[in-house]
């Protein structure tokens, strides 16, 4: 079996791959932002024991963590068009979904990895020593101020290792965008496969690209961890 990568020299294919790579990275970055928003907001709902919201968050976290992100994506994609959130394209007269595949992927990444982030941040908050919290309370910090200035900064730092895994998982999961026809790097790859039939070679290249992106994310997370490390605090 010989591998043939000569198709990589074709500028058109290079362009498809680069464009797809851009989409994949953008999707992942937006997903990460949404993941953090959901993670912090959800953890806060549980932390402050907000009535109704605490229960709802707990249930949704269990739901999203224990079901496949792919099914969540399909569900989101079809439900949002089913409940009529569609626009009518003035040129063709066809109705197109208001939420594009891209939006659905970002939403589903944010929800799935966000649900995991809720748990991660929550256990980070639980790991903040109660004496430190008490120190803040004795200085007159309100619960919200204590959360913002003391618990969250320390808790988030403690959750960096688990959060790094979660971010890598999010980047990997983003590859399923191709299944709702988002033009990400996997989509570019399938297009090239259709034209060149070098299926294995294309997949190996995509595999390498994902491993590189994920590894870069890990390196970035290590840099962040080092930058915000608390000197003299066993972390």
């Amino acid at each position, binding site marked *: 079996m010989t591998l043939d990568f000569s198709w990589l020299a074709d500028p058109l294919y290079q362009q498809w791959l680069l464009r797809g790579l851009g989409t994949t990275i953008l999707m992942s970055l937006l997903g990460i932002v949404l993941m953090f928003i959901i993670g912090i907001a959800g953890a806060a709902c549980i932390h402050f024991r907000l009535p109704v919201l605490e*229960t709802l968050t*707990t*249930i*949704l976290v*269990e*739901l999203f*963590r*224990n*079901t*496949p*992100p*792919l*099914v*969540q994506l*399909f*569900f989101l994609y*079809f*439900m949002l068009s*089913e*409940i009529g959130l569609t626009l009518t394209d003035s040129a063709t007269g066809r109705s197109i979904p208001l939420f594009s595949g891209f939006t659905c992927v970002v939403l589903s990444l944010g929800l799935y990895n966000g649900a995991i982030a809720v748990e991660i941040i929550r256990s980070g908050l639980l790991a903040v020593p109660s004496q430190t919290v008490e120190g803040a309370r004795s200085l007159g910090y309100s619960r919200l101020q204590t959360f913002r200035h003391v618990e969250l900064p320390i808790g988030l730092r403690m959750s960096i290792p688990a959060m790094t895994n979660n971010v*890598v998982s999010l*980047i*990997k*999961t*983003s*590859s*399923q965008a*191709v*299944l709702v026809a988002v033009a990400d790097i*996997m989509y570019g790859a399938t297009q090239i496969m259709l034209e060149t039939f070098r*299926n*294995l070679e294309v*997949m*190996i290249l*995509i*595999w390498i690209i*994902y*491993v590189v992106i*994920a*590894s870069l994310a*890990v390196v970035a997370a290590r840099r962040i961890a080092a930058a915000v490390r608390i000197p003299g605090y066993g972390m």
Partner: protein
Amino acid sequence: MNSELKAFTFGVVGVTLVLSAILVTVYGAETGRVVQALAVRTPLLLSGSPDFSRFEGGFAANIIISLWAMLIAGITGVALGIGLIAQSAAVRTPSVLVMNILRNSPWLVVLYAMLYLLPFEVDLFGTTFFLSPLVKSVIGLALPVTANIAEVFRGGVEAIPSGQWESARSLGYRRLQILRHVVVPQAIPFMTPNLMTTYAMLFIGTSLVVVTGAADVLSVARTVIASDGAHYATAIYLYVLFLFFIFCFPIAILTRWLERRVRVRQ
């Protein structure tokens, strides 16, 4: 078990209510008819056959694939895990490299790659093995899970105090013997919850085998949608979500219970 039992009841009831609420919101007055349609399609989604006569497709296929993949990944994972803790750098360095690559690979890409890498059939010991999509799915999932299991193995072994190694060595045990007779038996309680989490993750990952053409629950769901109409898509995917949840959630709860027990015993 008390607090976990409470969380379990709470989760099952809560998730069922949430999913039902979505169903009613989406379908309104039609809900009754949609539920009926789901009931008719239940045997197909669960077993791949219209009357539960066989269990080789649908959700049953996901379970079968996950069990085989776990079995294979268990063996390869422990082998890679032993490589990770090897003393010789010639073994350890490549093991770490392989683990990092596998850990950072999207499962979907690995599945696609296996689809194209693995031949249609292989000759082994004079017998021809037919590599069905199901077999390719099993291999494609077992590969990345190998990294997870290796990591769990290493974590469990490292949780055992070094004094155990020293005392066993002073009794004349060799490295692999120490692992087998002294360290691993003690590490199993630490590894079990993490192995269960890995299995739940693997099971969730079986949703991806839809791309290999195996007759898994998502493939069946897509066939059903194609024949019954896109109108039912939301309901069917809700149903599939529920199936996965009802399978994975008890595992998650059991894992939490085991973790708590391990912590308490320490």
